[in-house]
């Protein structure tokens, strides 16, 4: 079993009209045993910047802690929040630093850039950025996620419609993957508010 499939995860970020949604599953497992059903994979750095980390859970937590550290120092020094594009460059640089002993994580970054334009990107475990205009996925269920998102995605969705779309794509994909699931955790972010919702799906 690959190291990326040790804990199991599923992540989606999708772009809507002046908003974005980022969603994850809630299972934390150790190979085939489920350890937790409320594991947090998506972290908020500031009101307009979220990041989800899939892959090995210990690396995800450590990477998150390092990034929070860097981001807090940046906020203190520059007296402003980090832009999502800047943050993505920072994550990419941090991951490449460990090129020959990498973090076994695949991050998904989603945020609102300056003119309230949604920004999403993902990268591989050594920092190769992939910017997308519609959606990005990561995790053990990623193949199903790609198919599901491609099928249901429409450009310029309103927040409520986006929520429905992402929920459907996430739940149907994790149902096909034994290592991820146990519900969903989804954030829909607009310039004015952040809506956090827990989904109940097949609890297995």
């Amino acid at each position, binding site marked *: 079993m690959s190291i990326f499939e040790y804990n199991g995860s599923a992540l989606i970020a999708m772009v809507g009209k002046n908003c974005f949604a980022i969603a994850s599953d809630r299972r934390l497992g150790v190979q085939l045993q489920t350890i937790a059903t409320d594991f947090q994979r998506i972290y908020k750095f500031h009101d307009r910047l979220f990041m989800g980390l899939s892959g090995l859970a210990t690396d995800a937590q450590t990477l998150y802690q390092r990034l929070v550290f860097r981001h807090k120092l940046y906020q203190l*020094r*520059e007296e402003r929040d980090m*832009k999502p*594009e*800047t943050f993505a*460059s*920072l994550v990419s*640089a941090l991951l490449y630093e460990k090129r020959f002993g990498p973090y076994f994580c695949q991050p998904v970054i989603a945020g609102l850039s300056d003119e309230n334009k949604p920004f999403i990107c993902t990268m591989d475990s050594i920092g190769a950025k992939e910017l997308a205009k519609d959606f990005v996925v990561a995790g053990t269920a990623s193949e199903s996620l790609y198919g599901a998102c491609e099928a249901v995605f429409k450009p310029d969705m309103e927040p409520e419609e986006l929520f429905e779309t992402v929920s459907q794509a996430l739940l149907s994909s994790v149902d096909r993957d034994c290592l991820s699931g146990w519900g969903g955790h989804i954030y829909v972010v607009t310039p004015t508010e952040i809506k956090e919702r827990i989904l109940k799906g097949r609890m297995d």
Partner: protein
Amino acid sequence: MGDSQYSFSLTTFSPSGKLVQIEHALTAVGSGQTSLGIKAANGVVIATEKKLPSILVDETSVRDISSLFFHKSQPFSCLLFRCHFLILFFFLNYLWQVQKIQILTPNIGVVYSGMGPDFRVLVRKSRKQAEQYHRLYKEPIPVTQLVRETAAVMQEFTQSGGVRPFGVSLLVAGYDDKGPQLYQVDPSGSYFSWKASAMGKNVSNAKTFLEKRYTDDMELDDAVHTAILTLKEGFEGQISGKNIEIGIIGADKKFRVLTSAEIDDYLAEVE
């Protein structure tokens, strides 16, 4: 005076609470050629005297190289930025003659008063820091951050063993998301944001002149004229495009040094 007993070691405070070496460094700055900067509503101008010590100095080596870099509407993509910047480095190191105003990033320029060689070292370090920032964040460094890091370097040299402070004060002019900015950095490592400032030989007269002439809503062209007039105040001899240097940055966020022909045009307008 009692202080002189404590001037042998940089790292020792004198009884009056001063670090005497820094005072001496400021004196070195104060005897350097005058330079000044003015922040306008839509840009910043920095200027300096460039008096050659004798007529035997080869004037062609003191040419301004701005004409090599004046790109008109260059697309500002990431890759081009890097190429542009690296080419800048190469050219500047190769062609460095005696240009007093230097570019640190495409949108930040700097001028000094004091010791030229110390200035070269600081410019080199600042450029490296700016480029490191860009490598990490893929964003141009904000002016405040670059000034802070340069000031930190200067402070290091006031608290380490076996080194002396830099004998220069810098005027850093830049234009970023926060608008036009002008900072002065002293040998001690302290930095201040100025609307208009002067340093070097004629500093008190120049500052008085600037205080009288400065208005908050000045445009960039007015600022250039004011800068020229201020330099003229304390200038010994005939002022011309060949013995002063002017650098400007406008709302296009591109710092450039004016050619001597352009300076002569401004001088004609001022007459």
